[in-house]
């Protein structure tokens, strides 16, 4: 009865509070917008219904995250209102039990939260069914999709969060402490689960929000069909996660219950403090005695109160002093609070292991250079999925605490009646936050350096730390601090202020969701900065500064508003505050507002001039509109006969310091078709481009907006004839763009590619819109991502190679690199020139210029079987040049080793290396990625920081081997399976190169790396390898399928097939190869008895499951043992809808028996042979010499590599 009343009262009370309904409203609106937004589908390049279970679950995760950050006061208020309003003595003395009181309050809060979270589902429903959503996108209405998301995601989240929030608020007696509960969960989700425990499994288990098991796992693991149809079920990791967090919620509730007492609240109720108090009770009692009322002493009648006449200072001096004292008091207050402690102690301490943890890539340690460490410590304010989102979240909280500090302590009246304007409290509190942020930044900097020294690195670049952390990161936070302070002042209601401030953050982070894109319209936004060791900040700081200056001016204006509307005294109505603001709007404040406005207009105007007048600014939808228009206008010219380039002559002048480049070039174009060509289509890039022909041609269409020119030739170009296209391109920055400055040409580290600047011939299919949403929105018919495998037209679409000739001029102290072989270099007019040329090259060209050091080396074939008379000299000798930043040298030797090993193996197995040179170029950027073009590898600066450990996986070595393999890439058609032709083959080559140069141990380490699910989780979906497109197919499944095949039919057979494939397709007249050609060649070398395996690997999606049930060994005669294995095996085929079908098996599978292991060494098999194995249970008998220890089926996971179940092997039971 009492419980019911407590529940009823609490529920009814909060149901009538405005904030409860505001939370519901906000959730409905935001989730409505998220449902209408197609970002998720576009990001996944998949098309599913807006009301598919996956999208509903996805929106529910983000909705409950939003709820977590804004609605903590529901539980907080239920838990702490009595103490906060000092009503608790009345309630605590009523005869109610703890269970009734806490239970009623907690369950009421939980019920309210559960109701508020229904807003998410309402928002989704409205998003789906309100007008404006295309009916084609709406799937059948399935109530289960909503309630499973609500019950499996939202409700458990609500339970554990309410428990945390309630616990925090009960403990502290303050409703706002509920947010600390939210922060803890948030922190778990974003910091601990996502980064520290990134490896799947543990991270997924420990994430309380569902981000990882929905947004990460399901997005990657479920097929499109599944995402559309499969309902979320409580099983596996999802069930474990939910149970874990419900369990933690229950524990929190129990702790709250046990820790709660119906007692007068003293300052602290922590047990250690209670114990301490008991200990020092005697001392305290003495202290009290002294102050006990003793009228004899106190009454000193007749003596007037004489307070020394202290000199009073008013005006600026006083206000400055006031500001400083409020600042330091504010700082102290936050720094000594729990949340402050978290910010200043817990987070920096956790930053150390996080940084250490992140100093690796692909399992290989990276040198913890300062640039890289700083990258881990910084994030733009608006990066809502970064771990540092905790900082704005805490700022919102702290700003509320500071604005309400005096009033909550009951000192508001006294402080409000003090002299001075409203500037000191406003500025003082801002400075308090500023001090806090400075302390935080300092600690983060120390954490970074500690992490560096823990990793044995001591080249701390203090200056860089200071510049970036204090100069670039801190201002982001400070700008936000002003905003949230002003929001709290304006709203003048703590809970609603918190809500509005949170919404302000959501707007900043997800402004595109609200249809706002331009950085001039999103508070604090602007183009980002970038820093790399080669390029430095490059040109990124200028625009950054202009935008931040602009927003600082806004912050100033906001501060004026905050001051004018600062609540002082008892009159709180907005009308009155506005009236008061008019009185306060005098003198310096007026002057400040004026100058802030002038600054906003001036800076904003200057920025606008740069972004929208000097440069063209297009919104995302305008860009897409142009793409659609391009297609509508010119798609009709797709595939019409056009002349093909056969020669390119380029003269490129690079002026690094001016960030300019001038490109003069010409293409020799030949008509290879059978008809005369009367018009030529030239696609131009978004730079000033001049084009002209060597014969009379009229420019009939010059569509610069869509980058398309059509020239009508006076004399049609006859088949076999050729003409010359001359062009001139000027790369020259004009001010800066809305998204910053193009850093292609920069003072050190110029890097650009032809596709961004050079004219191209014909209609450009790659400019078309791709995603189904975009195409539908612009009224275009859907198009497949890529041509179908059997699209034979696509096989013919091949260039015949271009004779490339380029002269690059650059600053005297720089080295310029282009495709082709370096023919000469000279200095002229204070500039340095480089001449590169090659006889036949594809269409993708990169150009570099930087202060490179060049490491020169040479590879000479040791293979005597190559006949020097027959093969060109190039086949025997390769000149290797590695262009690198002089500071980056550690990677050179290992890289050369890998290049040599690759050349050794590939030339022997797949044919000669056809170019006598190889250039490796470092490009600016912190990424570790490497890219291969003809005779050229380029890599980011990050590549040079890899430091593989002895005896573990050498990733850079394998990467170089893989990229080198691309030099033997079979010319392939751009149809389904193309990534398999390119990447799978190159990784198979890479595996073999590693195996042959580093031995089986090196290969095992590479396999261990490739087997890791991250970043490519096994996707049990049915498209066969022959049509594989995604990274999992091309980088994992493909290479392993080839490797498995080589284990069965032999390496020479597979390599021979690949070599023949290359030889067949290399001639320019041959059609491009597809996976079907690959399959045919492989079939040709596969014996009939193994054709089934080839089918299983390439044509079907097959999974093997092996289990050794029992394994015994019996000695039969001296040194010989009989081993009996009872195994169970299954084979499953998954079709394209994800349906699994068991299929019978009767095939050859390896059985292995191993001797006891000796230390770390790889166990040598006593027995390893293929046996004929059927589906189901069976017994295998083998005899070995030597004492065995372990045995099983498929010991090296040749077939079962995807799951690598450990059940396949078992320790032997020895029968004596």
């Amino acid at each position, binding site marked *: 009865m009492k419980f019911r009343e407590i529940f009823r009262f609490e529920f009814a009370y909060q149901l009538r509070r405005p904030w409860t309904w505001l939370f519901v409203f906000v959730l409905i609106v935001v989730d409505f917008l998220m449902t209408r937004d197609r970002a998720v589908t576009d990001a996944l390049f998949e098309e599913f219904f807006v009301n598919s279970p996956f999208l509903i679950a996805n929106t529910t995760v983000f909705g409950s995250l939003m709820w977590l950050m804004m609605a903590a006061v529901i539980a907080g208020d239920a838990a702490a209102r009595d103490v906060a309003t000092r009503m608790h003595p009345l309630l605590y003395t009523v005869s109610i039990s703890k269970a009734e009181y806490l239970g009623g309050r907690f369950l009421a809060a939980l019920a309210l939260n559960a109701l508020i979270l229904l807003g998410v589902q309402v928002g989704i429903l409205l998003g789906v069914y309100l007008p404006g959503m295309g009916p084609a996108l709406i799937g059948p209405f399935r109530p289960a999709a909503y309630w499973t998301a609500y019950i499996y995601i939202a409700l458990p989240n609500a339970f554990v969060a309410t428990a945390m929030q309630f616990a925090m608020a009960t403990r502290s007696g303050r409703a706002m402490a509920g947010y600390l509960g939210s922060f803890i969960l948030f922190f778990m989700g974003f910091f601990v689960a996502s980064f520290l425990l990134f490896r799947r499994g543990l991270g997924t288990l420990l994430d309380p929000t569902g981000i990882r098991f929905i947004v990460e796992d399901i997005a990657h693991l479920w097929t499109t069909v599944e995402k559309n149809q499969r309902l979320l079920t409580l099983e596996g990791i999802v069930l474990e996660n939910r149970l874990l967090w419900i369990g933690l919620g229950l524990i929190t509730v129990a702790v709250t219950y046990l820790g709660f007492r119906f007692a007068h609240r003293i300052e602290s109720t922590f047990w250690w403090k209670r114990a301490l108090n008991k200990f020092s009770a005697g001392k*305290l009692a003495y202290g009290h005695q002294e102050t006990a009322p003793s009228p004899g002493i106190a009454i000193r*009648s007749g003596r*007037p109160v004489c*307070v020394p006449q202290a000199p009073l200072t008013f005006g600026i001096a006083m206000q400055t002093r006031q500001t400083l004292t409020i600042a330091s008091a504010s700082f102290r*207050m936050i720094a000594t609070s729990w949340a402050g402690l978290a910010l200043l102690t817990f987070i920096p301490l956790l930053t150390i292991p996080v940084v250490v943890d992140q100093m690796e890539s692909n399992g290989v340690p990276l040198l913890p250079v300062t640039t890289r460490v700083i990258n881990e410590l910084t994030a733009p304010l608006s990066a809502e999925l970064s771990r540092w989102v905790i900082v704005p979240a805490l700022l919102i909280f702290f700003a509320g605490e500071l604005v309400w500090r005096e009033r909550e*302590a009951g000192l508001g*009246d*006294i402080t409000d009646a003090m002299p001075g304007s409203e500037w000191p409290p406003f500025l003082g509190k801002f400075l308090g936050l500023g001090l806090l942020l400075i302390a935080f930044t300092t600690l983060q900097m120390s954490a970074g350096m500690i992490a560096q020294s823990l990793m044995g690195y001591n080249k701390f670049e203090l200056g860089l730390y200071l510049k970036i952390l204090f100069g670039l990161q801190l201002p982001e936070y400070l700008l936000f601090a002003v905003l949230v302070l002003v929001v709290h002042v304006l709203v003048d209601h703590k809970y609603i202020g918190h809500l509005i401030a949170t919404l302000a953050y959501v707007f900043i982070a997800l402004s595109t969701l609200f249809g706002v894109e331009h950085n001039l319209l999103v508070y604090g936004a602007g183009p980002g900065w970038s820093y790399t060791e080669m390029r430095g900040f490059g040109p990124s700081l200028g625009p950054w500064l202009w935008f931040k200056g602009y927003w600082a001016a806004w912050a100033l204006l906001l501060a004026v508003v905050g001051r004018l509307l600062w609540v002082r005294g*008892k009159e709180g*109505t907005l009308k009155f505050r506005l009236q008061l603001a008019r009185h306060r709007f005098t003198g310096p404040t007026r002057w400040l507002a004026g100058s802030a406005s002038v600054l906003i207009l001036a800076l904003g105007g200057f920025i606008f001039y740069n972004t929208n007048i000097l440069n063209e600014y297009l919104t995302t939808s305008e860009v897409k509109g142009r793409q659609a228009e391009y297609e509508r206008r010119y798609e009709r010219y797709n595939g019409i006969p056009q002349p093909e380039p056969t020669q390119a002559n380029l003269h490129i002048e690079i002026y690094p310091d001016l960030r300019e480049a001038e490109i003069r070039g010409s293409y020799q174009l030949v008509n290879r078709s059978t008809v005369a060509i009367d018009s030529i289509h030239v696609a131009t890039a978004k730079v000033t481009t001049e084009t002209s022909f060597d014969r009379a041609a009229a420019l009939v269409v010059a569509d610069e907006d869509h980058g398309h020119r059509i020239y009508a030739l006076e004399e049609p170009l006859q088949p076999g004839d050729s003409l010359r296209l001359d062009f001139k391109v000027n790369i020259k920055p004009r001010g800066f763009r809305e998204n910053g400055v193009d850093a292609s040409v920069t003072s050190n580290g110029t890097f650009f590619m032809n596709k961004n600047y050079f004219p191209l011939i014909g209609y450009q299919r790659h400019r078309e819109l791709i995603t189904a949403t975009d195409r539908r929105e612009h009224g275009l018919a859907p198009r497949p991502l890529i041509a179908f495998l059997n699209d034979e037209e696509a096989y013919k679409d091949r260039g015949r190679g271009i004779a490339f000739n380029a002269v690059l001029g650059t600053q005297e102290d720089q080295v310029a690199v282009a495709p082709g072989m370096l023919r000469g270099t000279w200095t002229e007019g204070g500039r340095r020139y480089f001449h590169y040329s090659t006889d036949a090259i594809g269409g993708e060209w990169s150009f570099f210029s930087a202060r490179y050091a060049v490491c020169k080396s040479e590879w000479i074939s040791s293979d005597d079987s190559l006949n020097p008379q027959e093969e060109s000299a190039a086949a025997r000798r390769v000149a290797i040049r590695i262009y690198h930043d002089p500071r980056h040298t550690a990677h050179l030797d290992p890289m050369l080793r890998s290049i040599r090993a690759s050349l050794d193996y590939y030339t022997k197995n797949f044919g000669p290396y056809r170019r006598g040179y190889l250039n490796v170029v470092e490009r600016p950027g912190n990424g570790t990625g490497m890219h291969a073009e003809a005779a050229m590898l380029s890599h980011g600066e990050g590549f040079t920081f890899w430091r593989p450990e002895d005896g573990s996986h050498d990733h850079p070595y394998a990467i170089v081997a893989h990229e080198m393999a691309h030099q033997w890439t079979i010319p392939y058609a751009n149809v389904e399976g193309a990534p398999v032709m390119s990447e799978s083959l190159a990784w198979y080559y890479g595996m073999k190169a590693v195996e042959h140069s580093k031995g089986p141990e090196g290969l095992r380490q590479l396999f261990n790396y490739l087997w890791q699910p991250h970043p490519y989780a096994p996707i049990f979906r049915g498209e066969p390898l022959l049509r594989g497109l995604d990274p999992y197919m091309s980088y994992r499944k493909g290479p392993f399928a080839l490797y498995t095949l080589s284990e069965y039919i032999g390496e020479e057979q597979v390599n021979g097939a690949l070599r023949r494939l290359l030889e067949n397709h290399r001639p320019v007249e041959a059609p491009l190869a597809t996976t079907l050609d690959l399959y045919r060649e492989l079939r040709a070398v596969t014996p009939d008895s193994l054709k089934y395996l080839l089918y299983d690997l390439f044509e079907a999606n097959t999974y093997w499951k092996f289990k050794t049930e029992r394994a015994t060994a019996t000695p039969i005669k001296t040194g010989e043992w009989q081993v009996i294995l009872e195994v169970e095996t299954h084979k499953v085929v998954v079709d394209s809808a994800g349906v699994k079908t068991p299929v019978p098996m009767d095939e050859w599978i390896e059985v292995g028996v191993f001797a006891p292991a000796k230390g770390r060494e790889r166990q040598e098999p006593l027995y390893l042979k293929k046996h004929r194995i059927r589906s189901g249970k069976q017994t295998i008998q083998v005899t070995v010499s030597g004492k065995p220890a372990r045995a099983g089926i498929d010991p090296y996971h040749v077939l079962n590599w995807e799951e690598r179940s450990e059940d396949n092997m078992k320790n032997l039971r020895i029968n004596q």
Partner: protein
Amino acid sequence: MELQIRNVSKIYPNGVQALKNVTLTIPNGMYGLLGPNGAGKSTLMRILATLQEPDEGNIQLGSINVVKQKEEVRKTLGYLPQEFGVYPKVSAESLLDHFAILKGITTRAARKEAVEALLRQTNLWDVRKQKLGGYSGGMKQRFGVAVALLGNPKLMIVDEPTAGLDPAERVRFLNLLSELGENSVVILSTHIVEDVSELCTRMAIINRGEILLEAVPLQAMEGLKGRIYRRIIEKSALPQLERDHKIISTKLLGGRTVVHVYSEKALGGFELVPPDLEDVYFSAMAGHIGSRKPEVAL
């Protein structure tokens, strides 16, 4: 310096008229504002303390317009609100120092001197290092006075300072107030008559937003002489007596009821008593004297 309050009215948004055409003249010295709970005392005090705005009327402190020139008032204001809190984790000394800066005592030495003097004056010197969270009600109140006294205010506003204090603490507190210099305006609002009678040279009685009486306590008591009668009766006789006489107050004494009656004529069966300030207060509240009964001249 003199505080002149002219025709001040204030109506709250919920319709409650907190002040109705209040006019008072308050000279230097201790001034008592006496009234029951909800009479509008605190509203008036907050208006004087610049925390609220009157709807109408004018308030002048010397040459300062209190409503318009808030900043000028604040420079010379000491305010002890009826209810206030403290930061529980801060010591008295450091919080007082903090307030001293806010009040404008910017030089360190002067501040140190002032803080020490005030802590000694309010008898908090020995506990200055103690956290304010551990202070008793009286100590906290004295701390409030110390804050209010910072910077030698010319206008001191003390709102219901003795409510909730134990008798000894109250005596100690009143002593402190009584010692305030003669050079400033000190307004003490209270619902306890003794506070005024013990301390104030001038006073006003306020009820339901109206000033009922503005007087010098001694003169007011003198004016009532011969009009206050007393009788001790059984509780049951009270209703009958109420019908027959103008009862201004009843009090319990040893289980019986002591009744004070206002009468301009001699009353039989009653004992004529010398009026005290409480009789003045209740007579004014009952409307026998003061502004509600303008025909009665004091």
